């Protein structure tokens, strides 16, 4: 199963993924024209602050079983059998909000969409860039992410890679050699400094 894999320790909160997502799902698919569209396109990925300076790019995880499909009364949510992607039929959505309530990741927002003729706010969530995938492209948010916080591929393969990294760290520890940093050194320095700054703020 292919999906977007999130590595929160690499997220620096730049929101580059949000812009790329909104442009990709706009009518014109061009940054300079998308910002003038009516309605304005909305991102389907949301970078949120968490603890201290840690941020997390939250999105639909395309889970299975899929609570939103189970609760949707109008049959607007379906699963693409080939990719395992959970898709919303915008014409069928009745703005009831059940999917948002059922979603364990709170990944569903309600926004206007250029795809529907009637002006209303309908369920909006990640479609794993379904259109791009059929053209052999990776999702727009992954392409935009320059820090490695988002990657796309077979989830088992991606996890295996991460597992190896953890294994290497553990083995190095056992062999009493310096522990390899899991995140880039510069990012660690920045994060440590920013964290201590935020802690100063909390004390006050």
């Amino acid at each position, binding site marked *: 199963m292919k999906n977007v894999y999130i590595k929160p320790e690499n997220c620096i909160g730049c*929101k580059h993924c949000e812009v*790329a997502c909104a442009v990709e799902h706009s009518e014109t698919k061009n*940054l*300079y024209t998308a*910002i003038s569209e009516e309605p304005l396109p*909305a991102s389907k990925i949301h970078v949120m602050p968490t603890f201290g300076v840690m941020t997390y790019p939250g999105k639909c995880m395309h889970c299975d079983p899929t609570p939103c499909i189970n609760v949707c009364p109008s049959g607007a949510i379906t699963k693409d059998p080939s990719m395992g992607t959970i898709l919303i039929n915008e014409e069928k959505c009745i703005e009831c909000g059940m999917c948002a309530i059922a979603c364990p990741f709170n990944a569903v927002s309600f926004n206007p969409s250029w795809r529907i003729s009637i002006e209303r706010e309908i369920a909006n969530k990640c479609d794993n860039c379904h259109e791009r995938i059929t053209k052999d492209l990776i999702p727009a948010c992954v*392409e935009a992410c320059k820090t490695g916080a988002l990657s796309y591929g077979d989830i088992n393969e991606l996890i295996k890679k991460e597992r190896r990294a953890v294994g290497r760290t553990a083995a190095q520890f056992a062999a009493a050699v310096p522990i390899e940093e899991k995140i880039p050194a510069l990012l660690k320095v920045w994060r440590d400094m920013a964290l201590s700054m935020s802690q100063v703020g909390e004390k006050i």
Partner: protein
Amino acid sequence: MIKKELLERTIDQSAHPILEKAAEEHIETAWDRLEAQEPQCGYGLLGICCRNCAMGPCRIDPFGDSPTRGVCGADSDIIVARNLSRMIAAGAAAHSDHGRDIVEVLHLTAEGKTLGYKITDEEKLKRLAQEYNILTDTRPKEEIAKELAEKAMEEFGMVKNTIQFAERVPDKRKDLWKNVGIWPRSIDREIVEIMHRTHIGVGADYANILLHGLRASLSDGWGGSMLATEFSDILFGTPEPKETSVNLAVLKEDMVNIIVHGHNPVLSEMVVDASRDQEMIDLAKQKGANGINIGGICCTSNELLMRRGIPVAGNFLVQELALITGAIEAMVVDYQCLMPSLPSIASCYHTKLITTSPKAKMRGAMHMEFEPERAYEIGKNIVREAIENYENRNSNKVNIPKNPVKLIAGFSTEAIIKALGGTAQPLIDAITAGKIRGIAALVGCNNPKIKHDYNHVTLAKKLIENDILVVETGCSAIACGKAGLLVPEAADQAGEGLKEIAKALGIPPVLHMGSCVDISRIMNVAAAIANALNVDISDLPVAGAAPEWMSEKAVSIGSYVVASGIFTVLGAIPPVLGSKNVTTLLTQGLNDVVGATFAVEPDPEKEAELIINHIEKKRKALGLTTPPIAAPM
């Protein structure tokens, strides 16, 4: 982005084999790095991120969700205006600091403290001295030069409070600048004031911030850049037409190849002198070379081309490729537009990368600091380093492209007037009669987002076909040189009217007027024509274009050209579209303020149409009729 085919990156034929060589040798160039950067940050592209204080960094959501203001309360209009103004400040600072260096060398030379420099154009020295009300009769030239240089130094300070060369514009323009409040007071002051006005908690009116940006740009165009041009002419001579050749094929298999790259001619002039020193030529022969070959890149190249006829290896995007030929003994750089990637690429070959300015040192390069007091000696030391490196050249790693292209450059304002027979009247008559419909200035950089040289060349061809005389500087001029447009025979590609005039005068239809500070020459031509016709510059059938721009200097240039009343089209999109108000001001509103606007058009064919339509509109307003265009066969 879809991966561009390697050879689709440029229309410079001499670059093609070297791009292939780079790929074979796994050497990364600007095009590869652009691919790695894409997609680029949307906030940056739209100009809506602000890093001016530590409450931030802040950005505005371009899709209307929160946040709509930075922590201080600045909205997208203010953030875009502040960022754009700071780009102008950086650009004006770069040009003007270059100007300052030239003024200092003239001052030291007048005091007899330099080695290798002299006052070459005495006539220009006196003409400028008169402009500054300096007594010229019965005084030795050194004394005049010293006083002139000191007067020029005052242009940077705050005692005088006015820029001398701004007086060259028509009275209408002077009044306009004063009424709008953008008359430039001093070079450094206006730049510093941009930094002040864009500091947290100062300017919060986007239009007011941008108007001052225009004022600072004028202190560049009619101040720093113009001083750089005029004072370089005094020191090294006012350019006259010279024939030479261009593209990477100017490198020589059997000679010591030295590339001079950057913008300031003060040291590279000495390198050229030293390369002609018999002692150096003998040393080169002793080391097995047939002589010393100097080639230029970017505007150092244009400066030497204009005055010395030194061959041109290429423009901005060619700098890395020049190293990858493996045939360069030394690349000598001064400042501006030097890619920080140069040391690592040079290290793949025997090439010595030599930095010379304390302002532009590079890790991994050899530093031989320029001092005007012993410039010639330093020039010789640099040439010696190159010669002694000749034996280290690895012929297995060398690929020198073939087929250099001929070009003629050196069209200073003075040279153009001379070609016209001593007065601008024949040009004005040709414009009035419609044989030449107008003049377009093509300037600016290369940008890997745009197919290298394609926009410059396509636009220039389209304009001359339509009887518009093209004047060029900088990387634009080098692009058209490589495309064969800077020779008199290129007049055959022009419309009937322009062809007739160019053939009669024996000049190319596209005139190379120099380096990027030499856009001041173009401003002088525009002001002279407007004065002769007793109209404002904004009334003239002229336009500007920066088809492949990328640098902050280009932002300052575009701003002073527009503020001087000349419609200007940009080929790359500036980071302003995140503010609708700023975009509207720049593309429409400025017309009511300074009589000219910017336009953005990445397609050179459409860019040409915008310029042609603008020129026709201006002709009509002046009551000039245009004969129908007979396009060349």
